[in-house]
């Protein structure tokens, strides 16, 4: 896999935590995560949920774009369901 271009001039925002809510009923909230080189669903789940085993939640939310949970690629945008 080619090395990912890194702009050392720009800050790192990989530790940003986010959330959302609404007064509307029946809402679904999810973050959009862009896959980076070296990522796996379990690594992403560990970083976001604190539990690598929660990779299944990410897989289920992205059934339409992930056919094989072991095959994700840099640049792919995944829906990350809210932890709540």
């Amino acid at each position, binding site marked *: 896999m080619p090395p990912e271009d890194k702009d050392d001039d*720009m*800050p790192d*925002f990989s530790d*940003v935590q*986010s959330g959302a809510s*609404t*007064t*509307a009923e029946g809402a679904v*909230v999810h*973050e959009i995560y862009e896959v980076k080189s070296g990522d796996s669903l379990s690594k992403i789940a560990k970083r976001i949920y604190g539990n690598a085993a929660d990779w299944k939640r990410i897989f289920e939310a992205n059934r339409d774009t992930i056919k094989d949970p072991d095959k994700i690629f840099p640049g792919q945008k995944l829906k990350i369901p809210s932890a709540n």
Partner: protein
Amino acid sequence: MKRLAASLLPVLLLTVAACKKAEAPPPTPAPTMAASTTTLPAPVGVKSVMLGSAIGPDKRVTTTSDVFTPKETIYAVVESDGSGPAKLRALWTFVKGEKTAKVDETVIEFPSSGPSVNEFHVTKPTGWPKGDYKVEIFLNDGATPAMVKTFKVA
């Protein structure tokens, strides 16, 4: 001849009278329909975006601001209205000259049936780098943002 004409005259008169009676009555005018007053529901739209460092129980910012400290949580509160499927996407970006770095991207999807208050928030445990940022609010996969707000961390 005169007798013939005289005897035929009443017949002629009766015929004319009968024709007049047999004329079709004037058509009755078609009933007029009252104009419809049904109003179609307004489509979903973004009404406003406010930034602040705290929100109240109603999810609205308690004090609007466009300058934040590195340790603050930053809220973008979006007021929307209208009926139909709604997908609000908040894209947060760090801006340095012509360069940008994505900070976060979060989506709220819901069936809108009237006014709603929607809040997005971001926080950075190690502190926000000082500089310029923006948050773009997209509605229903629109190619261009419905609203953009810029802010600073200082």
